[in-house]
Structures are given as C-alpha cells and as structure tokens.
C-alpha cells in the first residue's frame, strides 16, 4: 500500500477519500486554497497544505503546485476525486513521470476517452453501439433526404461545430426536412460561423443510464451494474438510483450493457473505476454517449446495492492489488436512491446560496447514508460548486428507498442558507418518478407543469405564532410587513420569474 496519499480535491469527495484512507491506516494529506482554510476536509486529513488563492485555476487546478506539495510531504500517490484534475490526462502523465501513482486510469485511457469524437469512433470499433447517424456534414437537401430515409424518422439535425442546443432541429417526417435543414444551417452559421449540419437518429424520451466498471492492472475488468441518472436539470444529474427501474424491467439488458461497457473500457486499456454513459431509448436500444474516466459523484448508490467500497477498491487497485470480486461474485440487493444537496434556492429559480450554515442536523435511521462536506458554523464559499452533501437511502424495494429518502430530505435541518431539500421532498413524491417513468427531459417538464402544494394551514399558523413569539424575545424585522408581504419563499418555484442564469 501507499506511504502517504495526497487528495487533490475539496468538499464531500475529499472527505470521502480521506476517511477511507484513515480507515485503511494510510497517512493522508489534504490541500486547500485560501478560501478553504476553514473547510471541514482539512480536519479529516493527517496533514494539510495550502496550494494557492481561491480561484481554482490557481489552486485545485494548479498541477505544478499540487505535484510539488506531494513531493515535499512525501506522498507517493494522488487521488484526484472527481472534477478538477481528475480527467486531466496531462496531470495523470505528470504524476507518472514524477513517480507518483495517479489513483485512476492511465493517462492514455483518459486521453482516448477525453476527445468525445474519438471516443465515439473507439466505441464503434469495439462493437459498442452509438447513436446511428452521419459523422460527415450532409451536402444538400437531396443527400439529407436519402440519409434521413435510411436512418428512419424522427431524426435530429445537429450543427457539426455545435453545442449548447444551437443549430439543432428535431425532424418528425420528410415534409419538415427542407425547412428544418434551412433553419438549422442558418442558426449554425450565425452561432459558429459554420453552416455544416449532420444527421442523427432522434432518440425520443431517452434515459441516461450508466454502467459502473472497474479494472485492475492484471487485466481483470468487471461491471457493477447500472445507475439511472435520467432526472437532470440543465444537463446536471439531480437524482440517481441503482438499479435502474427500466433495466430491471428488461431481462438481460444489464448483462448486455455491462458487456458493452467492458468492451469500451478494454478498448482503451482501462484500469481503476470508470463509468460508461449510455442513452437508452424506449425500445431498450442503448447507445454509447461517453466514458467518465474517474470516480463518479453518484458512486454511493452502487456501493449500497452491491455492498462494496469503491474508494477502497480504487486504492487497492492503484497499489497493484487484484479486484476484490470476480464478475460472478457481484450481487445486487435492494435499491438505493441519492439526491445531491446543493446550496441553491429553489424558491428563487435555483439561484446559488452560499453563506454561513447555522444548523446542520442530518436525519438518521435505517438505510440512510450521508456524504457531507459541510458542518454547522461553516461558511459555504461562493468560489466553488454548490454541492453540500449527498443524501442517499437504501431500501429492500425501490418504493422503500424512495420513501426513506423523501422522508429524510424533509427532516434534514440545514439553515442559514437555502438548499434544494424542499425541491427533493416534492420531486420524490411525484407519481411519474415513483412509477419510474422518467427520461432526460422529465424534470424540465415537471418543473414547468408542477403546481406548488398548498401550504398546510396549521403549519402556516404555527409559523406565524413562532415568528411572533421569537420577535418578543429578539426584535428583528429589518423589513416592514408590507415589504415582507412582497416576499415569499418555499414552493413558488415556477413563478419565480424568468430564468436569468447563464450557464
């Protein structure tokens, strides 16, 4: 095992890894920026070193400084967590050159999967399905008609140089194709100064389902089943679960997707933890999207259902040990659902809400797991992402795990700042979600159609009484009642005004 491991990250994932190191008896070193001197992750480590000012580019992304810190404190391995430098092939290569073990895949595997177009070619070569379509721009309406007909409608026109939804048009049938091609080309021209568009089969109501894979340096590669991550807001996962209700309903699908994921991983010489993301259509066809060459945020749901400790596995495998389980020893029991607790105000269009946490009282009880990066008295800085914690619940059935998580979200007392916990309390009770009828567009539709629940009259009265009782003790009221009347909070998400957040 390692002499000392430096964890090049912050927040809940740094704590997750530092705690695992402590339990394995491996000395650990944390790093921190000037904004994080008071952050809890320092106090989960044996050692802690400053690596620069608040901006990530000068601290958590500062490769030289991190490598230098590792060298100077005697660390022989670096765990990058997720985000930051975790998928940076140059960093992995620099570690290798410095004789420091990068706890993750080889730099070559990161590089192979890092370029999304190359990854797609690599997957195809390995026999892994990708979304059918042209990879070259269509040369005119005639060619477009022929290719669309061979793919079969509906199809999607996409800007070759595109991204962010610009230059994209869904086409339901041939009658719409010519106009759509004109519009998409024109939008692509104005957005990217390149009018080229290409055709892809349109996947209607796709699910985002990903396979957790794991490889060791001895050539073993296994999968640990799937996670369903179709509940997304602005392409960010907000609720994840293991297994997928869709895969559970389709016998053999897990095995087929697992085999495909392993094939993709093997094609790039993969070692350590990785995730192969698929788009899955309603007919259970699955298409390679991309591979995340690192530990995933949502790894706890897999751990809860398979009874594994993937961070421990990462350390063991990086130290040259074989995988603890063979494929036929992997088993799945029950269900686990996770929600990402963010410092954001669902009552004000999910606006970031950094600041000082007054109370932090997580719920407790059967099946619950909390991976937290915060504590009472901690000031959540505005410089980094808004994830505070991951709250997950295991149950013997999907229904029980959802019930436990919903109940836990409602009982989690986290005050001083706003969080998305009320949003989860409501979303996890949604009939469509409970029925497992979800897809990547589901959450946006739900947010648009949802009716805020009526306030419970008794609770409203109690709120009034306690506000009055508390005011008797300490007169606050910076606002006059009429000002206060203009403000409202809690359930009024849809009418919170137009979305003024830029990605």
């Amino acid at each position, binding site marked *: 095992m390692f002499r000392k491991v430096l964890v090049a990250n912050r927040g809940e994932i740094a704590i997750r890894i530092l705690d695992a190191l402590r339990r394995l008896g491996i000395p650990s070193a944390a790093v921190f920026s000037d904004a994080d001197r008071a952050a809890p992750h320092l106090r989960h480590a044996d050692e802690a070193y400053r690596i620069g000012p608040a901006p990530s580019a000068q601290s958590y992304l500062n490769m030289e400084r991190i490598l230098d810190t590792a060298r100077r404190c005697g660390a022989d391995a670096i765990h990058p967590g997720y985000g930051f430098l975790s998928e940076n092939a140059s960093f992995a290569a620099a570690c290798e050159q410095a004789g420091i073990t990068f706890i993750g895949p080889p730099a070559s595997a990161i590089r192979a999967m890092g370029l999304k177009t190359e990854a797609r070619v690599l997957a195809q070569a390995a026999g892994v399905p990708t979304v059918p379509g042209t990879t070259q721009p269509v040369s005119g309406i005639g060619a477009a008609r022929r290719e669309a007909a061979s793919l079969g409608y509906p199809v999607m026109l996409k800007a070759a140089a595109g991204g962010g939804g610009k230059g994209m048009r869904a086409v339901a049938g041939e009658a719409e194709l010519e106009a759509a091609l004109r519009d998409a080309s024109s939008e692509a021209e104005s957005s990217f100064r390149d009018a080229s568009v290409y055709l892809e089969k349109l996947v209607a109501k796709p699910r985002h389902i990903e396979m957790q894979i794991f490889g060791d340096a001895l050539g073993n590669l296994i999968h640990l089943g799937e996670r369903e991550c179709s509940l997304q807001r602005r392409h960010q996962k907000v609720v994840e679960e293991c297994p997928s209700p869709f895969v559970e309903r389709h016998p053999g699908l897990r095995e087929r997707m697992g085999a495909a994921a392993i094939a993709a991983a093997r094609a790039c010489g993969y070692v350590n933890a990785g995730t192969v993301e698929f788009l899955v259509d309603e007919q259970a066809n699955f298409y390679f999207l991309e591979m995340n060459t690192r530990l995933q945020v949502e790894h706890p749901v897999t751990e809860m259902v398979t009874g594994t400790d993937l961070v421990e596995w990462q350390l063991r495998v990086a130290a040259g040990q074989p995988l603890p389980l063979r494929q036929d020893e992997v088993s799945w029991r029950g269900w686990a659902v996770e929600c990402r607790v963010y*410092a*954001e105000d669902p009552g*004000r269009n999910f*606006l*970031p*809400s*950094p*600041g000082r946490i*007054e*109370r932090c009282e997580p719920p407790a009880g059967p099946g619950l797991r909390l991976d937290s990066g915060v504590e009472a008295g901690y000031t959540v800085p*505005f*410089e*980094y*992402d*808004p994830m505070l914690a991951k709250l997950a619940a295991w149950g013997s059935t999907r229904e029980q795990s959802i019930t436990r998580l919903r109940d836990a979200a*409602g*009982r989690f*007392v986290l*005050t*001083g700042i706003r969080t998305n916990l*009320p949003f989860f309390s409501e979303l996890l009770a949604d009939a469509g979600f409970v029925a497992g009828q979800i897809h990547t567009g589901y959450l946006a539709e739900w947010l648009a159609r949802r009716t805020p629940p009526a*306030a*419970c*009259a*008794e*609770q*409203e*009265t*109690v*709120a*009034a*009484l*306690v*506000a*009055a*009782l*508390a*005011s*008797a*003790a300490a*007169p*606050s*009221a*910076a*606002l*006059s*009642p*009429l*000002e*206060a*009347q*203009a*403000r*409202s*909070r*809690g359930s009024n998400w849809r009418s919170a005004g137009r979305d*003024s*957040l*830029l*990605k």
Partner: protein
Amino acid sequence: MKRIIAVNGRAGRIEMGRQGGEVRFSLTWEDAAGSVAGLCEAVEISPGRWSLLWEGRSFEAIVDGDAVLVNGTSFFAVARDPRDWSPADNHATGSGPAQIASAMPGKIVRLLVADGDPVEAGQGILTVEAMKMQNEMQAPRAGTVRLRAITSGGTVAAGEVLATIE
C-alpha cells in the same frame, strides 16, 4: 402582546397572552380568509428551536433568519410590534431611484455599462458569478445608470446595492 405578521406574503395580526405554561392566541388574516384562535403550549427547547403542542398536534418550529421551518417546511415569516412600525415605513421602496441589488453573494465578472450611461428597461447592467453560475442584473426601468463603487473582479454581498437607475 400584539404583532403584525406576514407569512409567505400573507399579512395578518396576532394577539397572544401567556396563560400558565400555555399561550392563548388569536390570529386574523388580512385577506379575510378567516381567523384562528386557540390555546397552545409553546416551549423554546433551545435557542431558536420551538416545540408547540396545539390541540394534541405536535409541531417543531425552527427560526431560520426571517424564515420559520415548521416540520420541515420553510415559511418566510416576520413579525413586528405595531408600536415600532409606522405606515411611513412602507414608502421606502416605492419612490426614489430604482435600485439594483445583488441577488446572491459572489464576484462581479463583467460590467456591461459605464457609469452615467442611458439604459433601457431590461438591459443588462452587470454580471455576478457565484458557484460557477452567472447571474445578469438588469435595469428594472429605463433611465441613467449610476454605478456604486464597484469594479469587475470585486466581491459583493447578497442584497448589496450595486447600481441605481435615475
């Protein structure tokens, strides 16, 4: 004791008095949707944490700044002694130059206009970034913008007034 209250924007008046360990109260909502009166037992368990028993029902209420968390549901709730409040207080927001305040703490990443520029209603004035998200602050009406002492790269607090439109 009398208090003017507002709960999630709903205004009302409350009168209450201690009666032994209990609180007798009478609450009247201004929207005339009814009033409620009763006797409840309210105990401040620890600072800011209350336990209320009301007709057998058990409630936990936690004071969270100007919100109260009741059994997990957050209500924006403020109370004011009517003697501390005059109707004039309500005019503060109505008149004078329109203010542009930051909706969240963060860093100013872009100034989109210069001090003294004429602006249209809805025009972007500046962009504040927090937690990898950017929020564009816009002019609430047309006029001449007056920037406060702010610079690109500077940090701002939530509610801090960054500019006015005259």
